[in-house]
């Protein structure tokens, strides 16, 4: 059975696209045929993060409008055989995506893939609604910061009431919390909400904690999903999260302040 996974948050800039790229790639690395779909109409970015921006010919809206077939629009990843990207349209027409059109494309993707990862736009309006509507599972990307946590809670309310599963009275969407841009040092100093705080407020299962990391910018500069940077803290944290998503028990790492090396202590500076 194909699994439709939405990566959503309410708030913008919290790490949805970074996480969609990392988790989609992680699923493919573990042998699952996966497609990552960019729902951010007008602000296409997943292609850049995945490093396939120059190979976009047709997009999501072209498929909905029957201007291209799905197989023409799907972009095959250069690194992994079983990983594909469906790019968002750069049109400024907000109504380019329709519930019916999206439903048709998702249905067709489910015939061909094990995982359909939907990278949601920010907000709680139409685009975000369409991205989550057909989902079986949701990854709520949250930063340890008041407005992000509040918006995540709003999004949880919408998942529980405005999704297809909710409307049909089916089993509810399975929700996962992904806490990103976490800074253990600031948490220790009492300047930032801790994992337990956010878990307590949102009361959903914790999928993972991704530390604030320089590896993320570096990976996006190069068009390589950060999970492929196996040496990096963020890459490893995403890797653990994908394992948990697939049901493996993994201890949480990177929650504590890194012990500084001797030289770093001597000369200061941050890594």
């Amino acid at each position, binding site marked *: 059975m194909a699994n439709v996974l939405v990566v959503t948050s309410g708030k913008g800039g919290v790490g949805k696209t970074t996480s969609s790229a990392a988790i989609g790639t992680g699923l493919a690395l573990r042998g699952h045929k996966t497609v990552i779909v960019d729902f951010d109409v007008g602000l296409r970015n997943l292609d850049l993060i995945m490093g396939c921006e120059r190979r976009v010919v047709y997009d999501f809206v072209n498929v909905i409008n029957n201007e291209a077939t799905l197989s023409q629009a799907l972009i095959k990843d250069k690194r992994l055989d079983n990983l594909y990207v469906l790019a968002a349209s750069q049109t400024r027409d907000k109504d380019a995506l329709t519930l019916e059109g999206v439903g048709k494309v998702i249905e067709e993707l489910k015939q061909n893939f094990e995982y359909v990862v939907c990278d949601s736009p920010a907000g709680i309006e139409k685009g975000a609604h369409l991205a989550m509507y057909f989902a079986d599972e949701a990854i709520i990307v949250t930063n340890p*910061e*008041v407005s992000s*946590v*509040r918006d995540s*809670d*709003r999004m949880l*309310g919408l998942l529980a*009431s405005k999704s297809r599963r909710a409307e049909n009275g089916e089993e509810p969407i399975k929700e996962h919390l992904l806490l990103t841009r976490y800074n253990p040092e600031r*948490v220790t*100093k*009492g*300047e*930032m*909400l*801790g994992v337990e*705080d956010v878990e*307590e*407020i*949102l009361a959903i299962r914790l999928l993972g904690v991704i530390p604030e990391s320089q590896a993320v910018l570096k990976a996006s500069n190069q068009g390589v999903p950060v999970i492929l940077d196996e040496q990096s803290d963020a890459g490893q944290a995403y890797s653990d999260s994908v394992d948990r998503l697939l049901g493996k028990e993994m201890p949480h790492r990177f929650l504590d302040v890194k012990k500084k090396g001797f030289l770093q202590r001597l000369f200061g500076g941050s890594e």
Partner: protein
Amino acid sequence: MSLFAFFRDRKKQNSASIAKERLQIIVAHERGLHSQPDYLPQLQKDLLEVIRKYVPIEQDQIQVELENQGNCSILELNITLPDR
């Protein structure tokens, strides 16, 4: 309390725990709002009109809330009357 005292008192608590407290309150409040029945805003308007027949009050002087308590709900009506 003076503004100075306000900030001085807050300083004793670290900012993350202030954030947590504020979030717990607002999130609980908003969850309540969204699980309220759809007829509540209309009920509030109708009540406002009835009361205005007798006392001049403003929209924000009337509060209608439904609170769930186990197997029953309590409709709480709060009306602030103008100074006499």
